[in-house]
């Protein structure tokens, strides 16, 4: 059956069924919908009618006419007239019946007065008073909506024949049926013609495909349409064209391959007779394909059982690959069964590829790889050796291993390069280490001279050999290769086979050994460089040692020297930040002068040794404090100390001044502590400092002669500081206004009055330093008094409870003592 007929028979009943179902559903739903609409609509109309009656009745009541018989009748007739004007479709109407079932009003005057009281539907109305009703009247079916109007005992029915209600849907049913049948037929016809149009070109395509299947590649299908089928036909044509081209190209390539590649292509029929025998491989074998076709395979490859067995295996259905030797050639044979269109075995196809060259090349490659592996291992073995003798030994050993030679040597040129000396030897050469050769002498000499490998495989008869009774008759073949440093030949590596073997050295061995020698040369060079580097290192260490010795000397020298210099001056000179030359600069500095009050008197009483110790102790303590505060100690003059802040390093004028004053406070404090120490060592009266501090411009720098220079300060500011110091009471720190201005925020000072200074035109305001505010805060609970024969130093804030109990006991005792007199 054709596709078009199939489609027709498949779709037509479906279409009929679909249309019939759709029609049925449409009819049913429409009828139901119409019924609902009609009932609603009749209900609305019924309400309207009822309202007409109600409004009339209300009217009568409102005008007290409900007792006037004529008025009531008129109102009823008005209500009926209003009802008559209510449109209910074409055939519907309002029917009014009185309580007894007599028709009181109807559009058809003939109906008025008719009795319907006996009708079952009227009984239904009477029982329900209002609702929907479906009834038969005058031979017709009606739908109705009724209401009972009590004041007039009217049953008001809005009614419409069912024929009108369902008229549309009944007509619709017929239309739908006709449309359905017509639609089905039309669709079927359209489908058929469409499928015909579709299938005709498809049939052509099928025929075309069959022709192509039979190998008629020149088949062309006419393209009739532009649709998908047309495209298919065009594609089919393109495909056959492509196939044609491909086929001819394949044929061509196959011919080229078969006639040029070293293969033999053969095919056997089911009986094992040759149907094809071609290929350049036949030429190699000197076989003539002519006349072979039709004969069994064994007639051609009688002496190659591998081919015959492969063909046999393929005939039994297996695909076989094997290697066959044929005459001097090696063939890779591949045989596969040839199957017919139904999958039945109907012969064998075989290809024998000449792989002789490939096999030989592979063999050679394998050998080279072996050598390279050995070379690599060897090289890695020697390259890390740095000791020359050890290295040479390794080179010879490895080379021997590599070439499987048991005899070998290394010659190295001597310093003059006039001769080469055997530095190492193995085998027969082991006994003649130190043997010397001239250029061109023996194999090694020739290598050294020429800088190229030399191979002698018949050493016994070689005319240039150096006679040596130890070797003669024992060495069969010798090879020598140069060892080079850059282009310069620095030695020779030689290997030898003895007569116990029949091996000779060939180009391959020469190349391998040369390459090995190149690597060995690098190792030798490394060893040599390593040796010279070791030497250089040793020499450098010696020189360094000497320098260090000198440095140590200098260091001790400068340490001694530093004691005579201010650390700042020392460091700035020794670090090179300030050169030692006569120069000065003007800077704002804070200058400190101090001396010990009554020192001369004290000194007079003391022995020189003790005095030196006391003074040095004093100055050391003060200097430590000064350096801790970053001061530049200018000089010591006896018990006097001159210190300044602001050069060579400065933290800013204010900070310098503050540090200076804090230093002075620290010194004063330290002096109190030292008094104890000194008292213990016999110095009765305590040493007390007078300190003056001023901040002002000074000239600072190196002053003096070329041979002897002092780093010091000069100027009015210095003089004022000195003047302040002399004005100070023992234990007092006196500062100028300038300094006061810088420190007053942190240091508690008391005004001390003005002094006059020589060289200054105006008197200078002076201040007595009490202490820093920081310390004063902590000293709140300290009590410190001193008078002849009494000293009190109490720091209650720092005391523990026990200490306090103890202190109280002491002070009570003191009080008792004082009160006794």
């Amino acid at each position, binding site marked *: 059956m054709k596709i078009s007929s199939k489609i027709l028979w498949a779709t037509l009943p479906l279409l009929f069924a679909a249309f019939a179902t759709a029609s049925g559903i449409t009819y049913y739903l429409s009828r139901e919908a119409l019924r609902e609409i009609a009932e609603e609509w009749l209900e609305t109309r019924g309400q309207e009618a009822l309202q007409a009656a109600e409004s009339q009745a209300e009217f009568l009541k409102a005008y007290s006419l409900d007792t006037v018989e004529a*008025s009531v009748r008129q109102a009823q007739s008005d209500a009926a007239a209003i009802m008559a004007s209510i449109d209910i479709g074409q055939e519907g109407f309002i029917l009014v019946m009185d309580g007894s079932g007599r028709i009181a009003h109807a559009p058809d005057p003939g109906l008025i007065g008719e009795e319907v009281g006996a009708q079952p539907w009227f009984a239904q109305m009477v029982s329900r008073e209002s609702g929907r009703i479906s009834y038969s009247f005058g031979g017709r079916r009606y739908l109705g909506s009724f209401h009972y109007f009590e004041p007039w005992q009217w049953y008001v029915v809005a009614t419409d024949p069912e024929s009108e209600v369902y008229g549309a849907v009944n007509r619709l049913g017929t239309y739908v049926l006709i449309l359905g049948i017509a639609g089905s037929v039309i669709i079927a016809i359209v489908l058929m013609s469409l499928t015909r149009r579709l299938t005709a070109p498809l049939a052509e395509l099928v025929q075309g495909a069959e022709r192509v299947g039979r190998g008629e590649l020149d088949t062309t299908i006419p393209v009739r349409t532009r649709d998908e089928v047309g495209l298919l036909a065009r594609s089919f044509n393109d495909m056959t064209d492509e196939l044609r081209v491909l086929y001819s190209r394949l044929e061509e390539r196959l011919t080229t391959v078969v006639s040029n590649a070293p293969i033999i292509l053969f095919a056997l029929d089911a009986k094992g007779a040759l149907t094809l025998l071609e290929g350049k491989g036949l030429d190699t074998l000197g076989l003539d394909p002519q006349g072979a076709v039709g004969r069994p395979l064994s007639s051609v490859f009688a002496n190659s059982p591998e081919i015959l067995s492969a063909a046999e295996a393929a005939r039994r259905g297996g695909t076989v690959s094997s290697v066959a030797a044929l005459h001097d050639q090696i063939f890779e044979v591949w045989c596969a069964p040839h199957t017919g269109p139904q999958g039945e075995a109907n012969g064998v196809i075989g290809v024998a590829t000449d792989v002789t060259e490939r096999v030989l090349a592979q063999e050679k490659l394998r050998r080279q790889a072996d050598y390279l592996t050995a070379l690599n291992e060897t090289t890695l073995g020697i390259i890390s050796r740095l000791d020359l003798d050890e290295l040479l030994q390794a080179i010879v050993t490895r080379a021997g291993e590599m070439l499987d030679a048991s005899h070998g040597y290394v010659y190295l040129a001597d310093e003059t390069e006039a001769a080469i000396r055997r530095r190492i030897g193995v085998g027969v050469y082991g006994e003649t280490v130190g043997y010397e050769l001239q250029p061109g002498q023996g194999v090694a000499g020739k290598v050294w001279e020429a800088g190229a490998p030399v191979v002698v495989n018949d050493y016994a008869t070689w005319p240039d050999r150096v006679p040596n009774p130890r070797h003669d008759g024992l060495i069969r073949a010798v090879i020598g290769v140069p060892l080079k440093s850059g282009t310069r030949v620095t030695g020779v590596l030689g290997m030898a086979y003895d007569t116990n073997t029949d091996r000779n050295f060939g180009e391959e061995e020469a190349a391998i050994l040369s390459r090995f020698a190149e690597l060995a040369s690098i190792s030798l060079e490394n060893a040599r460089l390593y040796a010279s580097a070791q030497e250089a290192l040793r020499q450098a260490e010696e020189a360094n040692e000497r320098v260090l010795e000198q440095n140590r000397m200098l260091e001790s020298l400068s340490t001694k020297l530093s004691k005579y210099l201010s650390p700042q001056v020392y460091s700035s000179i020794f670090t090179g930040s300030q050169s030692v030359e006569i120069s000065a600069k003007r800077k704002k500095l804070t200058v400190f002068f101090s001396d010990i009050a009554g020192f001369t008197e004290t000194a007079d009483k003391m022995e020189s040794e003790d005095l030196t110790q006391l003074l040095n102790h004093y100055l050391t303590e003060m200097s430590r404090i000064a350096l801790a505060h970053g001061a530049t100690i200018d000089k010591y003059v006896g018990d006097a100390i001159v210190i300044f802040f602001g050069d060579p390093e400065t933290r800013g004028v204010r900070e310098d001044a503050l540090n200076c004053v804090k230093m002075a406070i620290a010194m004063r404090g330290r002096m109190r502590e030292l008094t104890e120490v000194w008292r213990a060592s016999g110095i009765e009266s305590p040493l007390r400092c007078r300190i003056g501090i001023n901040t002002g411009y000074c000239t600072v720098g190196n002053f003096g002669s070329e041979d002897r220079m002092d780093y010091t300060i000069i100027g009015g500011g210095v003089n004022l500081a000195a003047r302040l110091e002399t004005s100070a009471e023992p234990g007092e720190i006196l500062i100028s206004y300038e300094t006061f201005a810088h420190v007053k925020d942190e240091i508690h000072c008391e005004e001390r009055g003005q002094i006059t200074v020589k060289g200054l035109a105006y008197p200078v305001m002076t201040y007595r330093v009490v202490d820093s505010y920081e310390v004063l805060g902590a000293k709140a609970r300290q009590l410190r008094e001193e008078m002849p024969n009494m000293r009190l130093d109490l720091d209650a804030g720092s005391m523990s409870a026990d200490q306090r109990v103890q202190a109280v006991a002491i002070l009570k005792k003191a009080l008792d003592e004082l009160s006794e007199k």
Partner: protein
Amino acid sequence: MRKYRLTKRNVCRLAGMAFTALLAILVIAPAAWAMESGSQFLRLGIDAADLGTGDPHRAASRNDRAVVDMIFNGLLRYRPGEAPQIEPDIATSIPVPKIAGGKQVWRFELRRDVMCHPGPQTEGYRLTADDVVFSLRRAADPDVSSYAGDYEGMTVTKVDDFTVDVTFDTPLSSILFFPKVADYAGGFIVCKQAVESLGDHGFATHPVGTGPFVFNGRVAGERIMLAANERYFRERPLLDGVEVRYLPKFEERDRLLRDGELDVIFGSEKPDWFSAISNHGPITVDVFGVGQVITMHFNLGRPPLDDIRVRKALAHAVDRDVFRALFAEGVVENVYSPVPVEFLPGGLSREEVAGLRLDYPHDPEKARGLLAEAGYEDGFKLKLATSERGHYLANYESLRDQLAAVGVDIELEVVEHREMHRRIREDENAIVIYVAWRPNADVFLTRFFHSDSTVVTGESPDTNFSHYDGIDRLIETARSTRDPAAQVRIWKQAQVKLLSDAAAYPLHYVNLVYARRKNVDYGHPLKAALALYPQFTETTRFKDR
């Protein structure tokens, strides 16, 4: 207002008009007045001694109404010869009311081609909203209008030159509203400039309107002359003019008609003349509405008529057909409700009344029974005043004769027509037979049956001769009902009630009877005319001229 510019075209038009006027004066007029054969002047003979007034807002008599009908228009008009059908006249369309600000507004768009006639003091000019507003306000002014009462609660405003709004505080139905602005009574539109220039009195003697015919002169007590309005907005009348001759004597009119001196005359209901003239070759008789309704009013305030049984007895005692037989065939038709269903919405038909058993069929036995029931088995006596005029006298006499059969003795006193009117308004008659036309059901019912209209005792005494007060609320409700159908229902119920109460017994209506020469073609059907004559319009013509 548009200035009249003296362009070349206008000069030509002016010249043409002047020439036409000259021609009319020199040639046509004398010819017309000479009544030569072939002229297009129509001659009407009517039963009055003279023109009463030409002012439409005053014109109340049948004869004056006929004259103003030819000279004036309304915003709407009753279709000529086909009343009460309404169509636009000066207005371009029949309006639909809108409610604005709680008031009912009727908006009229005016035609722009309506020209006022030239008057003694004024040129012809284009009628605008100003004239309409002036006219309607004038109709509502009791000092100058006989119909002012109909326009209470009405406001007229000009919207633009050709748009007028008529507003009512209390909405009206179209049945009640349209007569107020139709070509009837106060609805006639007068030309403001003419009224203002002439004064109300002058205007009454020389009416200036917009209608098909222009007032063209008057011979007191003899005739008035009307000429065709050359610029009538519908079209120039086919007639060249109309001559109205005042001939109160029927015989003279009859003679002149027969002699061909007149073309149309007001006829007579007398059967013998009627049959005689109907057979006269060149003359024919037209009987048409609207007919005046003749109703018998029973005075409820006057014993023994205060007893409903007595009133019902009287109703059953008389027979409409007997009354009808007094007049020529076709001239008089029975009516069964006070509002004539033939001419006005709101009336009850014979079938309706019979269905309600309110037609009181002639039944002397029943009448006697009812009287006996009421205690008047021997009847009673009544003295009634009647006019000497035909409709009154004939009917009263017939009533007397018919009631005599049930023992009711009536003594008639024939008095002058005017005297009768005076006496019945002084509540002298226990039974009043009254001939009247009213423009709508409301006016009929209000004036005859609303308690306010009760003679002597009413708030505004009018013609409620029955002293009836049973339908006041119904009348008022109907008046303010805007839905015409509902309104009609209420009017009918009102009449059902008053008929149930036997307050009145409608006898018949009297058609108008006009005779014409057969060559006169009115140009329209002739069923009913509120103008109370056959109506001469632009289409009226002589068939043979």
